[in-house]
């Protein structure tokens, strides 16, 4: 709690006020909704390019829906606020998540989800002149090992990492969740790394740079 960004006593009234019965509690909920709406509009606004086909009014509706859903989530999870960040930062993340998921799903509405074909082209369809001999072998091995994955792991891996399908969109289509699909993806990546290592390829760790 050494940093000025950590919880201050001013955070406590947020929780107390939101739990107050009557007009004061309602005012706090309205104030919170306004904050969440601001965050949702921020997210919808920065993703405007994905929603170029929507009218401005539709984008505002999306932000309003995201703020409404985030408000319900925040009020439901008040007990989980640990005071390790400012209350507003904690609350904002719910509005940003709701807005981002809604935008991604709206942007992909009616579009077919590419689960396989295009991804294979990304891996395989590059001329040998563009790729070193060492990389050509590695990519050929990777291609083979992806084909050995179970169907679900292969679908998720190709859709998310090669075809750029947002994981939330894929989760909705498959009746699953971001967390469950990411677990599939994580397990698939681990298998691929192990298989490539067993075949003598050296694959470096990433994510720390």
């Amino acid at each position, binding site marked *: 709690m050494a*940093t*000025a*960004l*950590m919880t201050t006593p001013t955070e406590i009234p947020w929780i107390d006020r939101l739990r107050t019965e009557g007009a004061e509690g309602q005012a706090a909920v309205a104030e919170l909704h306004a904050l969440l709406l601001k*965050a949702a509009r*921020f*997210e919808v606004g*920065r993703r405007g390019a994905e929603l170029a086909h929507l009218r401005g009014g539709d984008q505002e509706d999306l932000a309003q829906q995201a703020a409404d859903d985030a408000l319900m989530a925040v009020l439901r999870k008040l007990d989980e606020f640990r005071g*390790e*960040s*400012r209350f507003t*930062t*904690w609350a*904002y*993340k719910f509005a*940003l*998540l709701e807005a*981002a998921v809604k935008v*991604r799903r709206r942007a992909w509405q009616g579009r077919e989800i590419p689960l396989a074909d295009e991804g294979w082209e*990304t*891996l395989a369809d*590059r001329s040998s002149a*563009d*790729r*070193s001999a060492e*990389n050509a072998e*590695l*990519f050929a091995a*990777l291609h083979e090992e*992806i084909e050995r994955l179970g169907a679900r792991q292969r679908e998720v*891996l190709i859709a*998310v*990492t*090669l075809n750029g399908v*947002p*994981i*939330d969109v894929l989760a909705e289509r498959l009746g699953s969740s*971001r*967390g469950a699909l*990411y*677990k599939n*993806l*994580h397990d698939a*990546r681990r298998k*691929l*790394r192990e298989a*490539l290592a067993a075949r003598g390829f050296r*694959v*470096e*760790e*990433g*994510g*720390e740079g």
Partner: protein
Amino acid sequence: MAKDNEILGRVLGPGAPELTCEQCFDELDRYVELVLAGERADERIPGMRAHLAGCPACAEDFRSLHDLVSREGG
């Protein structure tokens, strides 16, 4: 080569211990504030950086919260 490395990075992921999406969301507000405060966010919340490198959706959530709080002077 750069394109190949980028594809490999996306397909094979960070290859380091990482949080789950649920853990990432739980810690996101604290992580963002630590980053903005110049604290040792990656030491305080191990596995977050690797997860953000591996999960495009959570990485976008991080950038959004970071930018929103930063804009507000956080």
